[in-house]
């Protein structure tokens, strides 16, 4: 590697020489370092190397994923701001906007589950209120290893406490999410956190600086040596050693974040702010460079002004610190005093640490020395971009229902299924989250989508996170489609019109063609579904290198969807409402057992092609269900997903305490009851209306059939002994608390 002469204008005497080893430790490949040299025409200083390493790592630069992400549909009638800002923004009418995004904090949560999860929630909340929105809800999608793995219980306990600890104290309701277990997450659990906020459409704040000579203000908590290398860590694969290395863990301070929220919103209301950017991954570096680069301006920072909580911090450390609860803001100069007074009132640090310049250079000064002098645009835009080779996995065979022997009758199979780690109630988790604070939670966790009233109503947002990783593993393209379709379906099942999504793409090492193949396949599937369902992507996050010793996680593209209800009092819930109502099954049932939970957890076979998703049918069936809900005809609604028809029926019964009996002439086959065919829902209607609803479905080209009637205190499947709803509930509620108490594996 040709090392060049040090630049004499950078008189950095106390920094070590740049060696190939040091370059490698910064995660820069030799060709990437060459790119640095070509770009600046000299050897970088250590601080500069750190800055390149932070800006050009996978986490910040999206170098492996960018080319593919560009293919996603990001525009639509409701979209105000698509990907590229701190969060996506959509128009929900009445001058209001919904601001939302999902982000991962996987690696930190494995190393220190409580603080890792907590700071993950803190980070995504900052992304949302940086844009001028008051957070109104959080969701969390969690994937853990095999329950039998010795670390799993500890991770579940810490992560859940951390998500709750931060959100509860900050004061935002955590209203939904997912929890799954699979041995492929053993060394790499996933913590994806989503935040949703509300703003006025004409008061959205962006990161792009404007105007030369404007003061750049540092706000929030002081800087310490937290999480230096954090961003690089998020892009590095784990090995046996990394548990020993224990990089500096960031500690969350939800109290300071709450103060920061109130101070920021107050300052924004006073019209003081030109641009604002939170300090997330790669802290001061990333935020300063982005503000300048997006605004076509240079930035000069004076590190002597940065509020530090530790002594003798070097420029390198200050530039790369990931201390939490900090912001950078470009202020209207005439508002300096006013802004400072607001921050002082909230007990937060406020310091002018730099200015915008006309030079397009990123300059950092510390103790009278110039530590950094880099071209600001190139730092962001010239990051390497890879078209990594990828291979598609061979298609798996379609499993014929006739080839799957039922190991037990339907009833016991149903009871066993709803007591499995993936299907059991997640009450133990969401009861640790304050899901009602702010007084707008219309539908709490436990239904298909959470429903959160907007201001005083009647509008409300429906929120859901979804993905079925085992489908993605079996067929990335279909799995990507399915993740979006299921999210759309969950929003539809409460009666909402799905508007837009955020995606959080969690995969293994993209340098392996088969992993890259999963990524590309899923992104294609997501894009196709988003187009077909008019459900654009407005924000997202990519987390790669989730693998340990060469074993990757299941491909897990979490989808977080937002839907709109014009009148939340019309929203549907999944609980049966009354006895004697007709239960209708919407959508076609072929009995698709491949990759079903029945096949995996009852028959012990994790096999076959996953159910295909027909997006046209998906839309037609969903639109029909939504209109039945909004017309008030459907008294309850629930989409069918994991576990199929029998599980969905049981969930509706358990939510209400009312039983159901199915018509005797129905198929008794396991494939009918547990198959996971897509685009299906269950609704209930008054018995007298059933005929009319079925006729309407027929006219709309929507397959629909009558399953039976609600009533009694037991669920009766055809040819089976009735199962008391209370017994179903016991099984459903038992597993997770017992597991966490150490009682079961």
């Amino acid at each position: 590697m040709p090392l060049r002469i040090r630049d004499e204008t950078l008189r950095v005497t106390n920094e070590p020489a740049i060696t190939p080893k040091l370059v490698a430790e910064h995660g820069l490949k030799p060709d990437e370092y060459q790119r640095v040299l070509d770009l600046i025409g000299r050897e970088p200083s250590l601080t500069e190397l750190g800055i390149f390493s932070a800006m050009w790592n996978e986490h910040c630069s999206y170098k492996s994923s960018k080319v593919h992400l560009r293919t996603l549909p990001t525009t639509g009638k409701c979209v105000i701001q698509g990907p590229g800002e701190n969060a996506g923004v959509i128009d929900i009418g009445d001058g209001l906007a919904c601001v939302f995004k999902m982000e991962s904090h996987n690696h930190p949560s494995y190393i220190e589950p409580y603080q890792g999860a907590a700071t993950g929630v803190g980070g995504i909340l900052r992304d949302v209120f940086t844009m001028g929105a008051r957070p109104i809800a959080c969701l969390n999608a969690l994937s853990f290893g095999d329950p039998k793995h010795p670390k799993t219980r500890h991770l579940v306990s810490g992560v859940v406490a951390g998500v709750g600890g931060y959100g509860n104290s900050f004061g935002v309701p955590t209203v939904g999410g997912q929890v799954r277990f699979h041995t492929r997450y053993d060394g790499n659990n996933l913590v994806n956190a989503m935040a949703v906020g509300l703003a006025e459409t004409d008061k959205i704040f962006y990161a792009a600086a404007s105007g030369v000579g404007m003061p750049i203000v540092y706000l929030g908590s002081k800087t310490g040596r937290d999480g230096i290398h954090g961003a690089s860590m998020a892009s590095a694969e784990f090995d046996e050693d990394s548990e020993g290395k224990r990089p500096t863990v960031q500690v969350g301070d939800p109290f300071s974040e709450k103060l920061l929220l109130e101070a920021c919103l107050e300052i924004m209301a006073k019209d003081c702010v030109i641009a604002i950017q939170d300090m997330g991954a790669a802290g001061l570096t990333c935020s300063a460079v982005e503000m300048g680069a997006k605004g076509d301006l240079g930035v000069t920072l004076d590190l002597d002004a940065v509020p530090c909580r530790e002594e003798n911090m070097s420029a390198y450390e200050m530039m790369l610190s990931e201390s939490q609860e900090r912001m950078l803001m470009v202020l209207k100069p005439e508002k300096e005093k006013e802004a400072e007074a607001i921050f002082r009132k909230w007990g937060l640090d406020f310091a002018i640490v730099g200015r915008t310049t006309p030079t397009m250079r990123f300059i950092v000064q510390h103790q009278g020395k110039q530590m950094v002098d880099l071209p600001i645009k190139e730092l962001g835009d010239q990051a390497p971009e890879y078209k990594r080779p990828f291979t598609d996995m061979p298609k798996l065979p379609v499993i014929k229902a006739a080839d799957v022997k039922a190991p037990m009758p339907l009833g016991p199979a149903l009871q066993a299924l709803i007591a499995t780690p993936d299907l059991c109630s997640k009450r133990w988790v969401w009861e640790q989250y304050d899901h009602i604070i702010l007084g707008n939670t219309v539908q709490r966790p436990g239904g298909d989508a959470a429903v959160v009233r907007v201001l005083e109503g009647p509008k409300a947002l429906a929120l859901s996170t979804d993905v079925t990783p085992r489908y993605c593993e079996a067929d990335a393209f279909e799995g990507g489609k399915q993740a979006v379709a299921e999210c759309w379906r969950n929003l539809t099942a409460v009666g909402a019109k799905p508007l837009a999504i955020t995606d959080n793409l969690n995969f293994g090492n993209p340098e392996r063609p088969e992993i890259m193949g999963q990524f590309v396949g899923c992104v294609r599937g997501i894009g196709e579904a988003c187009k077909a369902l008019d459900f654009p992507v407005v924000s997202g996050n990519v987390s790669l290198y989730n693998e340990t010793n060469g074993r990757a996680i299941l491909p897990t593209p979490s989808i977080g969807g937002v839907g709109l209800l014009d009148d939340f009092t019309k929203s549907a819930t999944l609980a049966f409402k009354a006895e004697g109502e007709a239960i209708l099954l919407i959508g076609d049932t072929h009995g698709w057992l491949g990759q079903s939970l029945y096949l995996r957890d009852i028959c012990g076979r994790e096999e076959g092609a996953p159910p295909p998703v027909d997006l046209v049918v998906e839309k037609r069936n969903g639109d029909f269900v939504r209109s039945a809900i909004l017309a008030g005809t459907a008294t309850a609604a629930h989409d069918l997903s994991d576990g199929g028809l029998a599980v969905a029926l049981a969930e509706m019964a358990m939510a209400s305490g009312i039983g159901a009996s199915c018509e005797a002439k129905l198929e008794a086959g396991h494939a009918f009851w547990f198959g996971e065919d897509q685009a299906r829902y269950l609704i209930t209607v008054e018995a007298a209306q059933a005929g009319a609803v079925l006729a309407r479905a027929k006219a709309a080209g929507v397959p629909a059939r009558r399953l039976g009637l609600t009533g009694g205190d037991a669920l009766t499947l055809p040819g089976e002994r009735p199962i008391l709803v209370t017994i179903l509930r016991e099984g459903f509620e038992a597993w997770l608390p017992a597991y966490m108490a150490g009682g079961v594996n």
Partner: protein
Amino acid sequence: MKARVTVTLKTGVLDPQGKAIEGALRSLGVTGVASVRQGKVFDIEIEGSDKAKAEAALKAAADKLLANTVIENYRVEVLG
């Protein structure tokens, strides 16, 4: 036997509690406090009288449960 395990935050790890307490002391008019770091103590009653065994058991307890060794240090004292 009585024993005490003291758990404190490692240097450099943010201590939001300590920070809030500093501020509160200042506004209560307690002067001269430059910084506060908060930790935990566990006062533990141990059966038997084998000091070495007790110390080993406590170290195990601290490692497994009482301290989060990613961000905390601990100290075990068997007081006898």
